[in-house]
Protein backbone atom coordinates (compact mmCIF):
# COMPACT_ATOMS: atom_id res chain seq x y z
CA UNK A 1 0.00 0.00 0.00
CA UNK A 2 1.33 3.39 -1.00
CA UNK A 3 0.68 5.63 2.00
CA UNK A 4 1.27 9.36 2.35
CA UNK A 5 1.26 11.29 5.62
CA UNK A 6 0.88 15.06 5.60
CA UNK A 7 3.01 16.32 8.43
CA UNK A 8 3.23 19.78 9.87
CA UNK A 9 5.87 20.91 12.30
CA UNK A 10 4.37 22.94 15.14
CA UNK A 11 5.71 24.61 18.27
CA UNK A 12 5.91 22.30 21.28
CA UNK A 13 2.64 22.28 23.19
CA UNK A 14 4.62 23.44 26.25
CA UNK A 15 5.40 26.70 24.45
CA UNK A 16 4.43 30.04 25.88
CA UNK A 17 3.11 32.07 22.97
CA UNK A 18 4.23 35.70 22.60
CA UNK A 19 3.19 38.22 19.98
CA UNK A 20 5.96 39.64 17.76
CA UNK A 21 6.53 43.37 17.24
CA UNK A 22 4.60 43.34 13.97
CA UNK A 23 1.48 42.49 15.97
CA UNK A 24 0.55 39.85 13.41
CA UNK A 25 2.84 36.94 14.09
CA UNK A 26 4.30 35.12 17.06
CA UNK A 27 7.85 35.16 18.37
CA UNK A 28 9.50 31.99 17.10
CA UNK A 29 13.15 32.48 18.18
CA UNK A 30 13.03 30.46 21.35
CA UNK A 31 10.46 27.86 20.34
CA UNK A 32 11.03 24.13 20.40
CA UNK A 33 9.48 22.39 17.40
CA UNK A 34 7.67 19.09 17.32
CA UNK A 35 5.60 17.01 14.92
CA UNK A 36 1.99 18.16 15.23
CA UNK A 37 0.57 15.55 17.65
CA UNK A 38 -2.29 14.60 15.31
CA UNK A 39 0.22 14.07 12.51
CA UNK A 40 2.22 11.84 14.81
CA UNK A 41 -0.97 9.80 15.20
CA UNK A 42 -1.15 9.73 11.38
CA UNK A 43 2.42 8.42 11.17
CA UNK A 44 1.55 5.70 13.67
CA UNK A 45 -1.61 4.71 11.79
CA UNK A 46 0.34 4.72 8.51
CA UNK A 47 3.00 2.41 9.92
CA UNK A 48 0.32 0.03 11.15
CA UNK A 49 -1.22 -0.05 7.67
CA UNK A 50 2.20 -0.74 6.21
CA UNK A 51 2.75 -3.55 8.70
CA UNK A 52 -0.51 -5.10 7.57
CA UNK A 53 -0.36 -4.54 3.82
CA UNK A 54 3.30 -3.83 3.03
CA UNK A 55 4.26 -0.83 0.90
CA UNK A 56 5.78 2.52 1.70
CA UNK A 57 5.07 5.48 3.92
CA UNK A 58 6.00 8.87 2.47
CA UNK A 59 6.00 12.04 4.56
CA UNK A 60 4.94 15.22 2.77
CA UNK A 61 5.43 18.56 4.47
CA UNK A 62 5.46 22.21 3.58
CA UNK A 63 7.74 24.40 5.67
CA UNK A 64 11.27 25.77 6.08
CA UNK A 65 14.46 23.72 6.44
CA UNK A 66 13.95 23.16 10.17
CA UNK A 67 11.12 20.79 9.23
CA UNK A 68 13.72 18.29 7.99
CA UNK A 69 14.30 17.33 11.61
CA UNK A 70 10.65 16.40 12.07
CA UNK A 71 10.60 14.43 8.81
CA UNK A 72 13.68 12.54 10.01
CA UNK A 73 11.91 11.82 13.28
CA UNK A 74 8.99 10.31 11.36
CA UNK A 75 11.50 8.30 9.33
CA UNK A 76 13.09 7.10 12.56
CA UNK A 77 9.64 5.91 13.62
CA UNK A 78 9.57 3.91 10.38
CA UNK A 79 8.50 6.11 7.46
CA UNK A 80 10.41 5.38 4.25
CA UNK A 81 10.88 8.68 2.47
CA UNK A 82 10.03 12.34 2.52
CA UNK A 83 9.10 15.30 0.37
CA UNK A 84 9.63 18.79 1.75
CA UNK A 85 7.98 21.65 -0.07
CA UNK A 86 10.18 24.61 0.74
CA UNK A 87 9.36 27.75 -1.18
CA UNK A 88 9.29 31.31 0.18
CA UNK A 89 6.52 32.07 -2.32
CA UNK A 90 4.13 30.19 -0.04
CA UNK A 91 4.73 32.56 2.88
CA UNK A 92 1.52 34.41 3.55
CA UNK A 93 -0.51 31.78 1.71
CA UNK A 94 -3.84 30.83 3.23
CA UNK A 95 -5.09 27.28 3.75
CA UNK A 96 -6.36 27.13 0.17
CA UNK A 97 -2.88 27.92 -1.15
CA UNK A 98 -0.99 25.55 1.14
CA UNK A 99 -3.44 22.74 0.51
CA UNK A 100 -3.05 23.24 -3.25
CA UNK A 101 0.69 22.75 -2.91
CA UNK A 102 0.23 19.70 -0.68
CA UNK A 103 -2.28 18.22 -3.12
CA UNK A 104 0.13 18.70 -6.04
CA UNK A 105 2.87 16.88 -4.14
CA UNK A 106 0.47 14.08 -3.19
CA UNK A 107 -0.69 13.68 -6.77
CA UNK A 108 2.83 12.99 -8.00
CA UNK A 109 3.12 10.17 -5.47
CA UNK A 110 -0.11 8.45 -6.60
CA UNK A 111 -0.89 7.06 -3.14
CA UNK A 112 -3.68 4.68 -2.16
CA UNK A 113 -4.35 6.60 1.02
CA UNK A 114 -3.39 9.91 2.60
CA UNK A 115 -3.42 10.35 6.36
CA UNK A 116 -3.22 13.73 8.01
CA UNK A 117 -4.12 15.46 11.26
CA UNK A 118 -7.61 16.75 11.92
CA UNK A 119 -5.92 19.98 12.96
CA UNK A 120 -2.51 21.42 13.60
CA UNK A 121 -2.13 22.56 17.21
CA UNK A 122 -0.62 25.89 16.17
CA UNK A 123 -3.24 27.84 14.25
CA UNK A 124 -5.97 25.26 14.85
CA UNK A 125 -7.27 25.73 11.31
CA UNK A 126 -8.64 22.22 10.84
CA UNK A 127 -8.85 22.88 7.12
CA UNK A 128 -6.06 21.45 5.09
CA UNK A 129 -6.97 17.78 5.06
CA UNK A 130 -10.47 18.19 3.61
CA UNK A 131 -9.13 20.83 1.22
CA UNK A 132 -6.46 18.49 -0.14
CA UNK A 133 -9.17 15.86 -0.66
CA UNK A 134 -11.29 18.37 -2.55
CA UNK A 135 -8.41 19.30 -4.89
CA UNK A 136 -7.75 15.60 -5.52
CA UNK A 137 -11.49 14.93 -5.95
CA UNK A 138 -11.17 12.12 -3.44
CA UNK A 139 -13.48 11.15 -0.63
CA UNK A 140 -12.29 12.08 2.82
CA UNK A 141 -13.26 10.73 6.21
CA UNK A 142 -12.65 12.97 9.19
CA UNK A 143 -11.55 12.66 12.81
CA UNK A 144 -10.67 8.97 12.92
CA UNK A 145 -10.35 7.36 16.34
CA UNK A 146 -10.10 3.91 14.76
CA UNK A 147 -8.96 3.03 11.25
CA UNK A 148 -8.79 -0.14 9.24
CA UNK A 149 -8.33 -1.03 5.61
CA UNK A 150 -8.70 -4.19 3.57
CA UNK A 151 -6.57 -2.74 0.80
CA UNK A 152 -9.42 -1.46 -1.35
CA UNK A 153 -11.53 0.40 1.19
CA UNK A 154 -10.86 2.25 4.44
CA UNK A 155 -13.17 2.30 7.43
CA UNK A 156 -13.01 4.71 10.33
CA UNK A 157 -14.88 5.47 13.49
CA UNK A 158 -15.69 9.13 13.99
CA UNK A 159 -16.88 10.56 17.30
CA UNK A 160 -19.61 13.17 17.00
CA UNK A 161 -21.41 15.11 19.70
CA UNK A 162 -23.43 12.56 21.63
CA UNK A 163 -22.48 9.55 19.54
CA UNK A 164 -20.30 8.04 16.88
CA UNK A 165 -20.43 7.26 13.19
CA UNK A 166 -18.74 4.56 11.17
CA UNK A 167 -17.64 5.73 7.75
CA UNK A 168 -16.27 3.87 4.79
CA UNK A 169 -14.56 5.02 1.61
CA UNK A 170 -13.17 3.35 -1.46
CA UNK A 171 -9.48 4.02 -1.99
CA UNK A 172 -7.84 6.28 -2.86
CA UNK A 173 -9.10 8.36 0.03
CA UNK A 174 -7.90 10.82 2.65
CA UNK A 175 -8.42 10.37 6.37
CA UNK A 176 -7.91 12.99 9.06
CA UNK A 177 -6.90 11.76 12.49
CA UNK A 178 -8.68 12.54 15.72
CA UNK A 179 -8.36 10.86 19.09
CA UNK A 180 -5.56 11.44 21.52
CA UNK A 181 -2.28 9.93 22.66
CA UNK A 182 -4.20 7.28 24.58
CA UNK A 183 -5.97 6.17 21.38
CA UNK A 184 -3.00 5.98 19.00
CA UNK A 185 -0.10 5.58 21.36
CA UNK A 186 2.43 6.66 18.72
CA UNK A 187 5.68 4.68 18.85
CA UNK A 188 8.98 6.24 19.77
CA UNK A 189 11.90 6.35 17.38
CA UNK A 190 14.31 3.52 18.15
CA UNK A 191 18.06 4.03 18.13
CA UNK A 192 18.57 1.87 15.00
CA UNK A 193 15.60 3.73 13.53
CA UNK A 194 17.37 7.03 14.10
CA UNK A 195 20.53 5.73 12.42
CA UNK A 196 18.59 4.43 9.40
CA UNK A 197 16.56 7.60 9.08
CA UNK A 198 19.64 9.61 8.19
CA UNK A 199 20.02 7.70 4.94
CA UNK A 200 16.41 7.66 3.83
CA UNK A 201 15.58 9.69 0.72
CA UNK A 202 14.28 13.23 1.23
CA UNK A 203 13.39 15.39 -1.75
CA UNK A 204 13.03 19.15 -1.53
CA UNK A 205 10.61 20.75 -3.97
CA UNK A 206 9.58 24.24 -4.96
CA UNK A 207 6.23 25.33 -6.35
CA UNK A 208 7.77 25.31 -9.82
CA UNK A 209 8.83 21.68 -9.34
CA UNK A 210 5.19 20.91 -8.58
CA UNK A 211 4.00 22.79 -11.65
CA UNK A 212 2.34 25.49 -9.56
CA UNK A 213 2.27 29.22 -10.11
CA UNK A 214 2.80 31.32 -6.94
CA UNK A 215 0.06 33.62 -8.24
CA UNK A 216 -2.50 30.85 -7.67
CA UNK A 217 -1.38 29.71 -4.24
CA UNK A 218 0.90 32.33 -2.67
CA UNK A 219 0.13 35.43 -0.65
CA UNK A 220 -1.52 37.28 -3.56
CA UNK A 221 -4.05 34.50 -3.92
CA UNK A 222 -4.92 34.42 -0.21
CA UNK A 223 -8.59 35.01 0.50
CA UNK A 224 -8.09 35.51 4.22
CA UNK A 225 -5.29 36.68 6.46
CA UNK A 226 -4.50 37.46 10.07
CA UNK A 227 -4.42 41.22 10.59
CA UNK A 228 -3.65 41.31 14.30
CA UNK A 229 -3.04 39.10 17.28
CA UNK A 230 -3.99 39.74 20.87
CA UNK A 231 -3.48 37.92 24.11
CA UNK A 232 -6.54 36.59 25.89
CA UNK A 233 -7.38 38.37 29.13
CA UNK A 234 -4.91 37.23 31.76
CA UNK A 235 -6.63 35.13 34.39
CA UNK A 236 -5.90 36.19 37.96
CA UNK A 237 -5.61 33.91 40.93
CA UNK A 238 -8.89 34.31 42.75
CA UNK A 239 -9.84 33.47 46.26
CA UNK A 240 -8.73 30.42 48.22
CA UNK A 241 -11.69 29.35 50.29
CA UNK A 242 -10.31 28.76 53.75
CA UNK A 243 -11.31 31.13 56.58
CA UNK A 244 -10.25 28.39 58.97
CA UNK A 245 -13.29 26.37 57.93
CA UNK A 246 -13.50 22.59 58.05
CA UNK A 247 -14.25 20.51 54.94
CA UNK A 248 -18.03 20.87 55.22
CA UNK A 249 -17.66 24.58 55.92
CA UNK A 250 -15.55 25.09 52.81
CA UNK A 251 -17.99 23.07 50.73
CA UNK A 252 -20.87 25.22 51.96
CA UNK A 253 -18.95 28.43 51.33
CA UNK A 254 -18.03 27.33 47.78
CA UNK A 255 -21.67 26.53 47.02
CA UNK A 256 -22.70 29.93 48.38
CA UNK A 257 -20.07 31.76 46.34
CA UNK A 258 -20.97 29.94 43.11
CA UNK A 259 -24.66 30.46 43.69
CA UNK A 260 -24.73 34.03 45.01
CA UNK A 261 -21.59 35.73 43.65
CA UNK A 262 -20.82 33.95 40.38
CA UNK A 263 -24.43 32.88 39.83
CA UNK A 264 -23.36 29.83 37.85
CA UNK A 265 -25.11 27.13 39.85
Amino acid at each position, binding site marked *: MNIVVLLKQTPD*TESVIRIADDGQSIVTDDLKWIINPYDEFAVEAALRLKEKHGGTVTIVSYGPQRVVESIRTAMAMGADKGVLIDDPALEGADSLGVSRALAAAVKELEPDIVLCGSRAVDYDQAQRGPMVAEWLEWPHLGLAVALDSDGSTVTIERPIEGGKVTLEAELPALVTMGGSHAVWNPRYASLPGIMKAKKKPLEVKTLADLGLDPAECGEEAAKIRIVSLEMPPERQAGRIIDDGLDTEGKAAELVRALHEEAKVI
Partner: protein
Amino acid sequence: MADCVFVVAEFRGGDFRRVSYEVASEGRKIADALGVSLYGIAVGSGVTDKASQLGFYGVDKVFVADDPALESYVAETYVPVIASIIEQADPAAVLLAASVDGKDLSARLAARLEAGLAQDCTEVVCEDGALKAKRPIFAGKCLAWCEWAEDALPMISCRPNVMDCRDADATREAEVEAVAVEIPEARSRATGLELDTSGKVELTEAEIIVSGGRGMKASENFSILEELATELGAAVGASRAAVDAGWRPHSDQVGQTGKVVNPNLYIAVGISGAIQHLAGMGSSKYIVAVNKDPEAPIFTKADYGVVEDLFKFVPAFTEEVRKMKSTC
Protein backbone atom coordinates in the same frame (compact mmCIF):
# COMPACT_ATOMS: atom_id res chain seq x y z
CA MET B 1 -23.95 43.51 -4.81
CA ALA B 2 -24.30 40.72 -2.38
CA ASP B 3 -27.90 39.86 -1.68
CA CYS B 4 -27.82 37.63 1.38
CA VAL B 5 -26.01 35.93 4.20
CA PHE B 6 -26.24 32.14 4.42
CA VAL B 7 -26.31 30.06 7.55
CA VAL B 8 -25.92 26.30 7.32
CA ALA B 9 -27.93 24.49 9.99
CA GLU B 10 -27.05 21.14 11.49
CA PHE B 11 -29.77 18.53 11.83
CA ARG B 12 -29.33 15.36 13.83
CA GLY B 13 -31.64 12.92 15.55
CA GLY B 14 -34.77 14.65 14.26
CA ASP B 15 -33.95 18.21 15.27
CA PHE B 16 -31.62 21.11 14.69
CA ARG B 17 -28.73 21.27 17.06
CA ARG B 18 -28.65 24.22 19.42
CA VAL B 19 -25.47 25.57 17.89
CA SER B 20 -27.45 26.14 14.69
CA TYR B 21 -29.62 28.65 16.53
CA GLU B 22 -26.49 30.42 17.72
CA VAL B 23 -25.24 30.51 14.14
CA ALA B 24 -28.62 31.80 12.91
CA SER B 25 -28.59 34.52 15.58
CA GLU B 26 -25.11 35.61 14.57
CA GLY B 27 -26.10 35.49 10.90
CA ARG B 28 -29.07 37.76 11.63
CA LYS B 29 -26.74 40.31 13.21
CA ILE B 30 -24.48 40.33 10.16
CA ALA B 31 -27.35 40.37 7.67
CA ASP B 32 -28.86 43.37 9.48
CA ALA B 33 -25.52 45.18 9.53
CA LEU B 34 -25.22 44.64 5.78
CA GLY B 35 -28.89 45.23 5.04
CA VAL B 36 -29.45 41.87 3.32
CA SER B 37 -31.66 38.81 3.85
CA LEU B 38 -30.68 35.84 5.94
CA TYR B 39 -31.02 32.51 4.16
CA GLY B 40 -30.77 29.14 5.85
CA ILE B 41 -29.62 25.84 4.41
CA ALA B 42 -31.02 22.71 6.02
CA VAL B 43 -29.75 19.34 4.87
CA GLY B 44 -30.78 15.96 6.20
CA SER B 45 -33.42 13.30 6.23
CA GLY B 46 -36.82 14.49 7.48
CA VAL B 47 -35.61 18.06 7.90
CA THR B 48 -38.48 19.70 5.97
CA ASP B 49 -40.96 19.73 8.84
CA LYS B 50 -38.59 21.55 11.17
CA ALA B 51 -37.08 23.95 8.66
CA SER B 52 -39.46 26.87 9.21
CA GLN B 53 -38.37 26.97 12.86
CA LEU B 54 -35.03 28.43 11.87
CA GLY B 55 -37.12 31.56 11.41
CA PHE B 56 -37.59 31.76 15.18
CA TYR B 57 -33.91 32.65 15.35
CA GLY B 58 -33.87 35.19 12.55
CA VAL B 59 -33.68 33.26 9.28
CA ASP B 60 -35.92 34.68 6.53
CA LYS B 61 -35.95 31.78 4.13
CA VAL B 62 -34.68 28.23 4.31
CA PHE B 63 -33.51 26.09 1.41
CA VAL B 64 -34.14 22.48 2.25
CA ALA B 65 -32.38 19.41 0.87
CA ASP B 66 -34.34 16.53 2.36
CA ASP B 67 -33.41 13.02 1.34
CA PRO B 68 -32.96 9.69 3.16
CA ALA B 69 -29.52 9.48 1.58
CA LEU B 70 -28.54 12.58 3.56
CA GLU B 71 -29.29 11.02 6.94
CA SER B 72 -25.67 11.22 8.13
CA TYR B 73 -23.08 13.81 7.30
CA VAL B 74 -20.68 12.61 4.62
CA ALA B 75 -18.47 15.31 3.10
CA GLU B 76 -18.69 13.92 -0.41
CA THR B 77 -22.48 14.18 -0.52
CA TYR B 78 -23.14 17.22 1.66
CA VAL B 79 -20.59 19.53 0.07
CA PRO B 80 -21.94 19.51 -3.51
CA VAL B 81 -25.54 19.79 -2.30
CA ILE B 82 -24.76 22.81 -0.11
CA ALA B 83 -22.42 24.39 -2.65
CA SER B 84 -25.08 24.24 -5.35
CA ILE B 85 -27.51 26.14 -3.11
CA ILE B 86 -24.95 28.80 -2.23
CA GLU B 87 -23.95 29.21 -5.88
CA GLN B 88 -27.53 30.19 -6.79
CA ALA B 89 -27.12 33.44 -4.83
CA ASP B 90 -24.49 36.10 -4.30
CA PRO B 91 -23.82 35.85 -0.59
CA ALA B 92 -21.88 38.35 1.50
CA ALA B 93 -20.93 35.59 3.93
CA VAL B 94 -21.58 31.96 4.82
CA LEU B 95 -21.81 30.96 8.48
CA LEU B 96 -21.66 27.43 9.85
CA ALA B 97 -21.23 25.69 13.16
CA ALA B 98 -17.74 24.81 14.34
CA SER B 99 -19.09 21.48 15.51
CA VAL B 100 -17.45 18.16 14.63
CA ASP B 101 -19.29 17.88 11.32
CA GLY B 102 -19.39 21.65 10.80
CA LYS B 103 -15.63 22.08 10.85
CA ASP B 104 -15.12 19.24 8.41
CA LEU B 105 -17.85 20.53 6.11
CA SER B 106 -16.60 24.14 6.29
CA ALA B 107 -13.11 23.17 5.19
CA ARG B 108 -14.15 21.18 2.17
CA LEU B 109 -16.88 23.61 1.20
CA ALA B 110 -14.37 26.48 1.39
CA ALA B 111 -12.18 24.68 -1.13
CA ARG B 112 -15.16 23.94 -3.38
CA LEU B 113 -16.25 27.59 -3.32
CA GLU B 114 -12.68 28.93 -3.14
CA ALA B 115 -13.79 30.93 -0.13
CA GLY B 116 -11.72 32.24 2.77
CA LEU B 117 -12.54 30.25 5.89
CA ALA B 118 -12.15 31.50 9.45
CA GLN B 119 -12.63 28.34 11.45
CA ASP B 120 -13.96 28.15 15.01
CA CYS B 121 -14.58 31.86 15.56
CA THR B 122 -15.64 33.39 18.84
CA GLU B 123 -16.56 36.86 17.58
CA VAL B 124 -17.55 38.49 14.32
CA VAL B 125 -17.76 42.22 13.72
CA CYS B 126 -18.92 44.21 10.74
CA GLU B 127 -17.17 47.55 10.18
CA ASP B 128 -18.20 49.72 7.21
CA GLY B 129 -19.56 46.69 5.43
CA ALA B 130 -16.39 44.64 5.97
CA LEU B 131 -16.30 41.60 8.21
CA LYS B 132 -13.65 40.79 10.76
CA ALA B 133 -13.55 37.60 12.79
CA LYS B 134 -11.74 36.63 15.93
CA ARG B 135 -10.53 33.09 16.49
CA PRO B 136 -8.48 31.47 19.24
CA ILE B 137 -5.18 29.96 18.08
CA PHE B 138 -2.75 27.70 19.95
CA ALA B 139 -5.82 26.29 21.73
CA GLY B 140 -6.62 29.71 23.15
CA LYS B 141 -3.12 30.79 24.19
CA CYS B 142 -3.53 33.64 21.68
CA LEU B 143 -6.34 35.26 19.67
CA ALA B 144 -6.21 36.17 15.98
CA TRP B 145 -8.28 38.74 14.10
CA CYS B 146 -8.82 37.79 10.47
CA GLU B 147 -9.88 39.84 7.48
CA TRP B 148 -10.83 38.86 3.96
CA ALA B 149 -9.49 39.97 0.61
CA GLU B 150 -11.89 42.27 -1.19
CA ASP B 151 -13.05 39.73 -3.76
CA ALA B 152 -13.28 36.87 -1.27
CA LEU B 153 -16.35 35.13 0.05
CA PRO B 154 -16.05 35.09 3.86
CA MET B 155 -16.87 31.76 5.46
CA ILE B 156 -17.10 31.68 9.22
CA SER B 157 -17.60 28.70 11.47
CA CYS B 158 -18.85 29.68 14.92
CA ARG B 159 -17.62 27.98 18.06
CA PRO B 160 -20.53 26.42 19.96
CA ASN B 161 -21.61 27.92 23.26
CA VAL B 162 -19.91 31.28 22.73
CA MET B 163 -22.09 33.51 20.60
CA ASP B 164 -25.38 34.87 21.85
CA CYS B 165 -28.52 33.01 20.92
CA ARG B 166 -31.74 35.01 20.38
CA ASP B 167 -34.81 33.99 22.30
CA ALA B 168 -36.99 31.90 20.04
CA ASP B 169 -39.75 33.98 18.48
CA ALA B 170 -42.39 31.40 17.56
CA THR B 171 -44.37 33.94 15.54
CA ARG B 172 -41.56 34.27 13.07
CA GLU B 173 -41.59 31.22 10.81
CA ALA B 174 -39.21 31.17 7.88
CA GLU B 175 -40.32 30.63 4.32
CA VAL B 176 -39.28 27.15 3.19
CA GLU B 177 -38.17 26.17 -0.28
CA ALA B 178 -37.38 22.59 -1.19
CA VAL B 179 -34.47 22.19 -3.56
CA ALA B 180 -34.24 19.33 -6.00
CA VAL B 181 -31.58 17.13 -4.47
CA GLU B 182 -29.08 15.63 -6.80
CA ILE B 183 -26.84 13.44 -4.77
CA PRO B 184 -23.61 12.86 -6.61
CA GLU B 185 -22.04 9.48 -7.10
CA ALA B 186 -20.02 9.02 -3.91
CA ARG B 187 -17.12 6.78 -3.04
CA SER B 188 -17.73 7.18 0.70
CA ARG B 189 -20.67 6.50 3.00
CA ALA B 190 -21.77 6.32 6.61
CA THR B 191 -22.35 2.71 7.55
CA GLY B 192 -23.38 3.16 11.14
CA LEU B 193 -24.69 5.91 13.37
CA GLU B 194 -24.94 5.38 17.10
CA LEU B 195 -26.46 8.16 19.13
CA ASP B 196 -26.15 8.15 22.88
CA THR B 197 -29.63 8.60 24.25
CA SER B 198 -28.61 8.75 27.89
CA GLY B 199 -28.87 12.54 27.76
CA LYS B 200 -25.19 12.92 28.59
CA VAL B 201 -24.09 16.51 28.10
CA GLU B 202 -21.50 17.07 25.38
CA LEU B 203 -18.31 18.67 26.74
CA THR B 204 -18.00 21.35 24.06
CA GLU B 205 -21.57 22.44 24.64
CA ALA B 206 -21.80 22.06 28.42
CA GLU B 207 -22.61 24.95 30.77
CA ILE B 208 -20.83 23.22 33.64
CA ILE B 209 -17.93 20.75 33.50
CA VAL B 210 -16.47 18.72 36.32
CA SER B 211 -13.05 17.35 35.34
CA GLY B 212 -10.82 14.87 37.09
CA GLY B 213 -7.09 14.31 36.78
CA ARG B 214 -4.38 12.02 38.05
CA GLY B 215 -5.40 12.91 41.59
CA MET B 216 -8.52 10.75 41.10
CA LYS B 217 -6.18 7.75 41.37
CA ALA B 218 -8.50 5.14 39.81
CA SER B 219 -11.25 4.72 37.28
CA GLU B 220 -13.90 3.79 39.85
CA ASN B 221 -13.24 6.96 41.85
CA PHE B 222 -14.77 9.00 39.06
CA SER B 223 -18.13 7.94 40.46
CA ILE B 224 -17.86 10.80 42.97
CA LEU B 225 -17.46 13.24 40.07
CA GLU B 226 -20.34 11.62 38.18
CA GLU B 227 -22.52 12.12 41.22
CA LEU B 228 -21.55 15.76 41.52
CA ALA B 229 -22.08 16.22 37.79
CA THR B 230 -25.57 14.75 38.02
CA GLU B 231 -26.47 17.23 40.78
CA LEU B 232 -25.13 20.13 38.71
CA GLY B 233 -26.38 18.96 35.32
CA ALA B 234 -22.75 18.97 34.27
CA ALA B 235 -20.57 17.02 31.85
CA VAL B 236 -17.54 15.11 33.11
CA GLY B 237 -14.14 15.83 31.60
CA ALA B 238 -10.61 14.64 32.27
CA SER B 239 -6.97 15.60 31.99
CA ARG B 240 -4.70 13.72 29.64
CA ALA B 241 -3.15 11.93 32.61
CA ALA B 242 -6.53 10.44 33.50
CA VAL B 243 -7.19 9.46 29.88
CA ASP B 244 -3.71 7.99 29.38
CA ALA B 245 -4.21 5.93 32.52
CA GLY B 246 -7.28 4.42 30.88
CA TRP B 247 -9.65 5.78 33.53
CA ARG B 248 -11.67 7.84 31.06
CA PRO B 249 -12.41 7.65 27.32
CA HIS B 250 -10.34 9.85 25.02
CA SER B 251 -13.45 11.84 24.15
CA ASP B 252 -13.38 13.26 27.69
CA GLN B 253 -9.91 14.77 27.33
CA VAL B 254 -9.79 18.53 27.75
CA GLY B 255 -6.79 20.47 26.49
CA GLN B 256 -4.57 21.27 23.57
CA THR B 257 -4.80 17.74 22.18
CA GLY B 258 -8.29 17.16 23.48
CA LYS B 259 -11.37 19.32 23.51
CA VAL B 260 -11.33 23.05 23.91
CA VAL B 261 -14.24 23.91 26.16
CA ASN B 262 -15.86 27.10 27.34
CA PRO B 263 -18.43 26.44 30.04
CA ASN B 264 -19.73 28.94 32.57
CA LEU B 265 -18.17 26.86 35.30
CA TYR B 266 -15.20 24.49 35.14
CA ILE B 267 -14.37 22.50 38.24
CA ALA B 268 -10.88 20.95 38.09
CA VAL B 269 -10.44 18.17 40.59
CA GLY B 270 -7.02 16.63 41.20
CA ILE B 271 -5.62 18.40 38.14
CA SER B 272 -2.32 20.28 38.46
CA GLY B 273 -2.92 22.78 35.64
CA ALA B 274 -0.33 21.95 32.98
CA ILE B 275 -0.12 24.48 30.15
CA GLN B 276 -1.77 22.04 27.70
CA HIS B 277 -4.69 21.58 30.04
CA LEU B 278 -5.07 25.29 30.77
CA ALA B 279 -5.12 25.98 27.04
CA GLY B 280 -8.24 23.89 26.66
CA MET B 281 -10.29 25.36 29.49
CA GLY B 282 -8.79 28.81 30.09
CA SER B 283 -11.74 30.61 28.53
CA SER B 284 -14.25 29.15 30.99
CA LYS B 285 -16.18 31.91 32.68
CA TYR B 286 -15.44 30.63 36.19
CA ILE B 287 -12.81 28.13 37.24
CA VAL B 288 -12.82 26.23 40.51
CA ALA B 289 -9.80 24.15 41.56
CA VAL B 290 -9.77 21.42 44.15
CA ASN B 291 -6.28 20.20 44.90
CA LYS B 292 -4.41 19.14 48.00
CA ASP B 293 -1.24 20.89 46.86
CA PRO B 294 -1.48 24.66 47.54
CA GLU B 295 1.34 25.20 45.01
CA ALA B 296 -0.51 23.57 42.09
CA PRO B 297 -0.41 25.95 39.08
CA ILE B 298 -4.16 25.57 38.55
CA PHE B 299 -4.71 27.87 41.55
CA THR B 300 -3.12 30.77 39.68
CA LYS B 301 -6.01 30.61 37.17
CA ALA B 302 -8.85 29.63 39.45
CA ASP B 303 -11.52 32.06 40.62
CA TYR B 304 -12.15 29.88 43.63
CA GLY B 305 -9.67 27.43 45.06
CA VAL B 306 -10.01 24.79 47.73
CA VAL B 307 -6.93 23.14 49.22
CA GLU B 308 -8.32 19.84 50.39
CA ASP B 309 -8.15 16.13 49.80
CA LEU B 310 -10.59 15.63 46.96
CA PHE B 311 -11.91 12.36 48.38
CA LYS B 312 -13.13 14.25 51.43
CA PHE B 313 -14.12 17.46 49.73
CA VAL B 314 -16.06 16.30 46.66
CA PRO B 315 -18.70 14.27 48.56
CA ALA B 316 -19.14 17.16 51.03
CA PHE B 317 -19.52 19.60 48.15
CA THR B 318 -22.05 17.37 46.38
CA GLU B 319 -24.05 17.23 49.61
CA GLU B 320 -24.02 21.04 49.93
CA VAL B 321 -25.16 21.41 46.31
CA ARG B 322 -28.05 19.06 47.08
CA LYS B 323 -29.00 21.11 50.13
CA MET B 324 -28.85 24.35 48.17
CA LYS B 325 -31.07 22.91 45.47
CA SER B 326 -33.64 21.67 47.94
CA THR B 327 -34.00 25.12 49.48
CA CYS B 328 -34.25 27.10 46.22
